[in-house]
């Protein structure tokens, strides 16, 4: 393929050169757009004992907010970078070379931020111990094993926790080569896969996968496709697996922790948590802890233990709704809605939780070109209790999802306000 593989020695030399050039300080905001530069800069900051700040968005406000956690913060960017393609080909098993700099396990190497429901983003420090554990516990569960040489292509930026783990950390311990060239458009992905001299792995999200499936180009084989950040609908799983002859692997995670559980949606709706985590049910909430985590974290979703160390996702803790004395989870309703023929996207919502008047019923927005609302209502009625049938059920062109596929309460509320005007 075009471009060239980067050796471990070159990787180290690049890290050291960038580390030498970094201004003194406590932390950096790494704005490098090119994946190899981002990776080198990330480890260069680690080497200098500086924390990598990972604001959840790249807006000036989010960057400014992240910077406030440290006194001396520099911003590193590769805006004028001209070369577009590198491959980080690091295979520690093959030559015994040390891939990443030697770091103290307690060093806080990064800080992720979550957008709190109100006000300032919350900071989540990440120690090297957390990442080191991740590298050893999570990768062992990778489909087909992590020591099979593969080209890893990611449509997810490395500054997102999901991208950081799978497209930055994974290649430092697995036999994966990370593709550092263009990886955004369906055509980029297909070109990279076609040029690969090994099997390919695609790290992606439902939004990117929907676009990929619509692409008319002759589909190459992608051995493993990973999806995270939003629930993936069964029709998309089937479409991707069939079209790309792929095995789709879904990750559950959150910015506070990173990847937590995985499943093969084709085979099961049950999640298997990575072995470093312990789950604890406290009333209606599911709490998660690990030896490496300073304290337990309450998950946004509630899980129910099943046989064989597997768990069923019952729904968001905050999304359980009670209507006519019956309890249901919005997540479950959404999964039923998304499984209906012709439904491309859709969401149930509780108007009261979005600040609207209580109608005693749920509402739903549905993207189903060519389908009538009555069809959707009839199909839903066949699967769910009538108490939860949406009123109103609005057919829309698209949901106001963010670039990571997330549908926030704020954007949903704004979207619905337009109907109420």
């Amino acid at each position: 393929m075009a471009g060239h593989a980067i050796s471990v020695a070159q990787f180290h030399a690049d890290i050291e050169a960038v580390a030498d050039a970094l201004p003194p300080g406590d932390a950096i905001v790494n704005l490098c757009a090119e994946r190899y530069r981002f990776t080198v800069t990330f480890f260069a900051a680690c080497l200098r004992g500086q924390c990598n700040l990972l604001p959840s968005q790249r807006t000036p406000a989010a960057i400014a907010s992240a910077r406030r956690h440290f006194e001396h913060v520099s911003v590193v960017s590769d805006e004028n970078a001209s070369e577009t393609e590198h491959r980080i080909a690091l295979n520690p098993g093959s030559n015994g070379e040390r891939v990443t700099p030697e770091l103290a396990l307690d060093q806080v190497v990064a800080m992720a931020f979550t957008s709190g429901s109100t006000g300032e983003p919350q900071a989540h420090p990440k120690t090297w111990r957390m990442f080191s554990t991740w590298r050893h516990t999570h990768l062992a569960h990778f489909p087909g094993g992590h020591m099979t040489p593969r080209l890893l292509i990611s449509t997810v930026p490395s500054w997102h926790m999901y991208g950081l783990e799978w497209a930055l950390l994974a290649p430092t311990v697995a036999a994966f080569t990370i593709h550092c060239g263009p990886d955004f458009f369906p055509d980029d992905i297909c070109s990279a896969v076609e040029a690969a001299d090994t099997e390919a792995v695609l790290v992606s999200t439902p939004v990117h996968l929907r676009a990929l499936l619509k692409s008319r180009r002759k589909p190459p084989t992608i051995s493993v496709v990973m999806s995270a950040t939003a629930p993936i609908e069964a029709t998309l799983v089937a479409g991707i697996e069939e079209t790309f002859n792929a095995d789709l692997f879904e990750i559950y995670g959150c910015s506070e922790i990173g990847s937590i559980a995985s499943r093969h949606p084709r085979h099961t709706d049950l999640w298997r948590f990575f072995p470093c985590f312990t789950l604890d049910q406290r009333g209606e909430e599911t709490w998660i802890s690990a030896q490496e985590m300073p304290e337990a974290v309450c998950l946004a979703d509630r899980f129910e233990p099943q046989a064989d160390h597997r768990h069923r996702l019952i729904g968001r803790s905050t999304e359980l709704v009670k209507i006519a004395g019956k309890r249901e989870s919005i997540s479950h309703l959404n999964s039923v809605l998304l499984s209906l023929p012709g439904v491309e996207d859709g969401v149930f919502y509780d108007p009261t939780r979005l600040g609207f008047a209580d109608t005693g019923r749920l509402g739903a927005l549905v993207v189903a070109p060519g389908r009538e609302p009555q069809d959707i209502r009839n199909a839903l009625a066949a699967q769910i209790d009538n108490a939860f049938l949406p009123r109103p059920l609005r057919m829309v062109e698209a949901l106001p999802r963010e670039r990571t596929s997330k549908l926030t309460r704020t954007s949903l509320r704004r979207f619905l306000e337009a109907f109420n005007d």
Partner: protein
Amino acid sequence: MAQTPEQARMAALIVEILNLEDVEPASIDPHAILFEDEGLALDSIDALEIAVAIAEEYNVHISAEDEQTKEIFATLANLTAHVAQETSA
């Protein structure tokens, strides 16, 4: 500045594919910046949607390997010119 017929067709496609219900296609200035905080303030997912729509409508495949991807997506005029160039090639 007035749109050419090809720019008008592209503007209609963009408005349709991105569900910009409140935007009149003819009101998009061919030379105004489409992305970031200017103009229509589109983001990268919108670029993805537009690329898929252009592939379907014109059979032109845009990739980030085209060195000037940023330039291509900068304005309605650039996007239209790129598609015209690819379809005539």
